[in-house]
């Protein structure tokens, strides 16, 4: 008796859920599918917010998904394939590396779905070799971001400084990380030839790994002058190691992303600076532009969103107009 009553209630709830889902999926303009990396990193969280706000403001139907970590490459591919089942009109994807979503994007392109490379994770050469024609790529100029990091570091240390610098790269094989590290290294060489990069190691976007790398390099080079990390998560890990070694304030630590944790750390006087990307703006502009493209307008192949160096002074003055997009 009890069992059959339970079954009926479960059944009724299930049917109600299906009907509700059906009503919500009113496909006038079609659905926009958004695939992020992991929402655990506030950077991607902010970008996700930007995409959602952009879609809501434009009155679009969308569904957003993420995977459990920055390294779940195959899982992201599987999620991507499953998203195609819903036949979206656009797929806005932040690929974990330059190749893991290729089969899914190939299928999407054949189905005539607009593809947006969110944050420039795809390699244009590989896309060309695979005959995948994406609608556009949007992101910060990562080479420029690295260069801005170098410029600020030289500002702090002086162009005739001599000493050791540590570079902590991103996930092995990721284009974004490579561009930032390279941008930093090139500009640093131009501006301050006396500063030597004693180590450039992959931190895999992981706070813990970056902390360990910093500890090891500090042991080897106790007079380390500066650390550049390819993202804030890793920079924050490095900062903790620096303070743990009682060198807080002696080492210039610069991250990239400008996420909320980094902003807090800069205001507290721990992290020196972060080259803020404006992920919220990137997300919003991605949606606006893909909507325009689907409506038939011309949209550039590569949309660059500027980056902003956040320091304690900039944050305290609060005058910089782009600060509203730093979330």
């Amino acid at each position: 008796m009890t069992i059959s009553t339970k079954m009926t209630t479960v059944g009724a709830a299930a049917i109600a859920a299906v009907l509700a889902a059906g009503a919500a999926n009113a496909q006038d303009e079609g659905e926009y599918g958004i695939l992020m990396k992991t929402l655990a990193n506030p950077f991607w969280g902010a970008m996700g917010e930007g995409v959602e706000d952009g879609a809501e403001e434009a009155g679009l139907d969308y569904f957003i998904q993420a995977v459990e970590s920055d390294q779940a490459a195959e899982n992201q591919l599987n999620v991507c394939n499953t998203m195609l089942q819903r036949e979206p009109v656009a797929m806005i994807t932040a690929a974990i590396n330059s190749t893991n979503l290729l089969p899914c994007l190939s299928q999407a392109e054949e189905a005539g779905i607009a593809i947006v490379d969110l944050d420039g994770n795809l390699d244009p050469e590989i896309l060309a070799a695979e005959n995948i024609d994406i609608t556009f790529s949007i992101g910060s100029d990562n080479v420029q971001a690295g260069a801005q990091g170098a410029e600020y570091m030289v500002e702090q240390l002086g162009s005739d400084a001599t000493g050791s610098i540590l570079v902590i790269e991103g996930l092995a094989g990721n284009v974004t990380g490579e561009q930032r590290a390279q941008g930093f290294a090139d500009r640093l060489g131009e501006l301050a030839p006396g500063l030597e990069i004693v180590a450039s190691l992959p931190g895999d976007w992981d706070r813990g790994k970056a902390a360990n790398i910093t500890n090891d390099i500090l042991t080897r080079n106790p007079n380390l002058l500066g650390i550049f990390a390819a993202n804030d998560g890793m920079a924050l890990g490095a900062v903790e190691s620096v303070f743990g070694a009682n060198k807080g304030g002696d080492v210039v630590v610069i991250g990239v992303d400008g996420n909320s944790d980094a902003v807090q750390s800069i205001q507290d006087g721990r992290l020196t600076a972060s080259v803020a990307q404006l992920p919220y703006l990137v997300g919003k502009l991605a949606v606006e532009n893909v909507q325009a493209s689907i409506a038939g307008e011309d949209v550039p192949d590569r949309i660059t969103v500027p980056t902003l160096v956040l320091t304690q002074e900039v944050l305290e003055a609060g005058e910089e107009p782009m600060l509203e997009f730093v979330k």
Partner: protein
Amino acid sequence: MPMTDERLWTRVQSFSIDQLHIRIESLIVLILLGALMAFLSPFFLSVSNFMNILLATSTIGVLAIAATFVLSSGGLDLSLGSVLGLSGVVGAAVAVKLNAPMPIAVAATIGAGAAAGLVNGLIITRAFVPAFIVTLGMLGVARGLALVISDGRVIYGLPDAMVYLGQGRPLGIPMPVIIFVVTAVAMHVLLAYTRYGRHTLAIGDSENAARTSGINVDRHRLSLYVLSGALAGLGGLLFATRINSGDPTAGITYELTAITAAIIGGTNLFGGRGSILGTMIGALIMGVLQNGLNLLAVQSYYQQMAIGAVLVFAVFIDQWHVRKESRV
């Protein structure tokens, strides 16, 4: 008439175990789960979605087959994911950097896996270091080696013939699915119907009894780890050809997922019981769960919770049976 129902149910269960080598409960769970997902999402019941489920399950599925063999013998292989990554990189490097023809590259991929398995097996059987430790060490060594060979980047651009293995769709069925199913059937026959399979289960059930009855336990164990490594290599081949590149970070944490699938399918963690068909059902339960929740756009964190719950539930059912059977 409760008596007759119970007898009928017991007969169904024994038939299932004896003839099909699977626990009927896991099959029922799979069917119910499928029905639930079909109910909840209009996109679930379609041929292309089923192909997606099988495709998503194929890499883990091959690893789960490896895990089934090793677990059945009372062993453990924690290096499966790293060996998958290493094999993919080796195959890609041989194909792209050495410009080798496709059959050589494929052989290199599976061979790299088998070689890693051989190292595992030799240390376990000759140096008497526990399997947990040896394969844990190989987990690190293989991953590091993959990063060294690839210099940390993906090796892109495999030859077309090789890419076909991952992206071809003869008769609309993805090649990895075909390879996975064929492998599973072959391995099921090996484990359930051959002397090799019986010896594997015997060693897991009681190593001393197996040794006394004349089985060369060490040699058999060694062959199991080589087989496990080769299957991990096959998994590496399937994934690398799907994305047309050797990715040194492929397969991270896969060994745990593979073991989970094997256990959900009825393999005993401590050895003595295991079936490939059961493992496939276990892998499909996880695949259906993930696919269904993806279609509903549920975040993957909940998926992980769901899989953890299913795992504990599956072992509970299993243990309940074992206790019932051991009651005289």
